[in-house]
């Protein structure tokens, strides 16, 4: 089992969701986060005062998957999120120790799908 965490551009969310559904990955958690990597942020202007280097709005996806689905999930996120410009985001993959479905009490791989 792996936990895949991805940080993507907010406007790519719909495309990423479509790509994930196409890869039959249907269970995701989405949250709105702030941050920036190499991209410096969008300049905003308030009453003439320039504000740059603001933290940017990003979307964080959290997806728990069994081993068979790790690469398809990564591929789908890249397909949907990639624009080729700085700021497209990152994907982190980490080992997942356990997973419990609260309703039934099942645990392990069977609880993920």
């Amino acid at each position, binding site marked *: 089992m792996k936990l895949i965490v991805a940080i993507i551009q907010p*406007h790519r969310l719909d495309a990423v969701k479509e790509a994930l559904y196409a890869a039959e990955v249907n269970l995701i958690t989405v949250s709105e986060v702030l941050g920036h990597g190499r991209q410096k942020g969008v300049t905003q202007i*308030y009453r003439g005062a320039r504000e740059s280097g603001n933290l940017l709005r990003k979307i964080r996806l959290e997806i728990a998957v069994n081993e068979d689905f790790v690469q398809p999930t990564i591929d789908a996120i890249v397909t949907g999120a990639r624009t080729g410009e700085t700021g497209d985001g990152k994907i982190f993959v980490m080992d997942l120790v356990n997973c419990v479905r609260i309703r039934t009490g099942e645990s392990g791989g069977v609880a993920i799908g």
Partner: protein
Amino acid sequence: MRNGIVRRSLLPGALALLLLAGVGVAHAEGAAAPAKIDSGDTAWVLISAALVMLMTPGLAFFYGGMVRRKNVLGVLMQCFAVMCVVGLQWVLFGYSLAFAPGNAFIGGLSWVGLHGVGAAPYPDYAATIPHQAFMIFQGMFAVITPALIVGAFAERMKFSSFLIFTVLWSTFIYDPMAHWVWGMGGWLRNLGALDFAGGTVVHINAGIAALVTALVIGRRKGYNGVAHPPHNLPFTVLGAALLWFGWFGFNAGSALAANGVAVNAFVATNSAAAAAGLSWALVEWLWNGKPTMFGAVTGAVAGLVAITPAAGYVSVVPAIVIGLLVSLFCFAAVSWIKPKLGYDDSLDAFGVHGIGGIWGALATGLFASSVVNAAGADGLFFGNARQLLVQAAAVGATILYAFAGTWILYKIVDRFFGVRVEEKEEVMGLDLTQHREAAYTVLE
């Protein structure tokens, strides 16, 4: 009603007769006569102008709540910019094109820069208030009308092109149309079409323009017949409440006097809005299982639209009927016809203002009664079938002119400047890409 002589009954009869004669002559000459200014009328029209002004920011919030959070400033800015741009266009030359003496289709240029439009009344339009008070009251109508169209192309129009389109549309569509219906010599006015406060000029006109722009600009990216959820419905409710409040100036102010017709229009307006807000919620309850806040305010606005042409000509029961029925028509338009046809009138400017306006104009031909307003006429239900035909002719002419004219202006602006934002700008949102601002912060 607009002559203002009737209410001089307190004056000695002889003096009243003298005044009547004097105004009669002035009326025939069509000149600014030494008619007497009534302070009550003037105060009411000035207050009404201020009430109508508040409708445009009200509309901005009504619309602003419906869009996604990345576009809310874009919508507010478009509405606010109309207040600035058309506010100037109107006093510089718009008022003259609409109301100065001209031919049957457009006014002249004699009142450009408000030349000769001053403190003296112009009895052909309003005998008891300064001409300039009439001008600024009308100016607020000219402002809100192009702002109504914003709902059709929300979330995807370039701001620079929007400004150009707005000035052209006000000049070539609104001003002539206002002249047809309200200007001296205007052909719809001479035909006898009843439009108390602007059902044709404001609502059908803007509604049809909305349909045209929604059709030619195309759907928002990712729109597949299902609306994006509104980002802030309380804004929409606040906006609708401001619209309802301002509409008392819009309709009751259109009596141009503080008199019984104004009161009738006030009561009809409130009754129609109440009936329509209720009936939309009830329709939803039956159709979708729950009444919604969004539906109730949409219905109330539809009721206000529908009663606009009729407010000063119908009594309260017909006003309620007009309100009850408008929600059925508009509900069908926005939740059934629009998805069927597939156009993306983002905030239903056509579905509410176009459909509601057409129903209101026709309903005026059904329910108008000369008992309510001697300056009006009887409708079909009071034995005058011709009035319904006249109303239908006014509706037809408005639809044709607004449709063709808007299409041509849109194509011209698109050809030279490009109307739609780049795809990337659309996904990032108009707030950041058109104005370099964000409406909401996440942390601070």
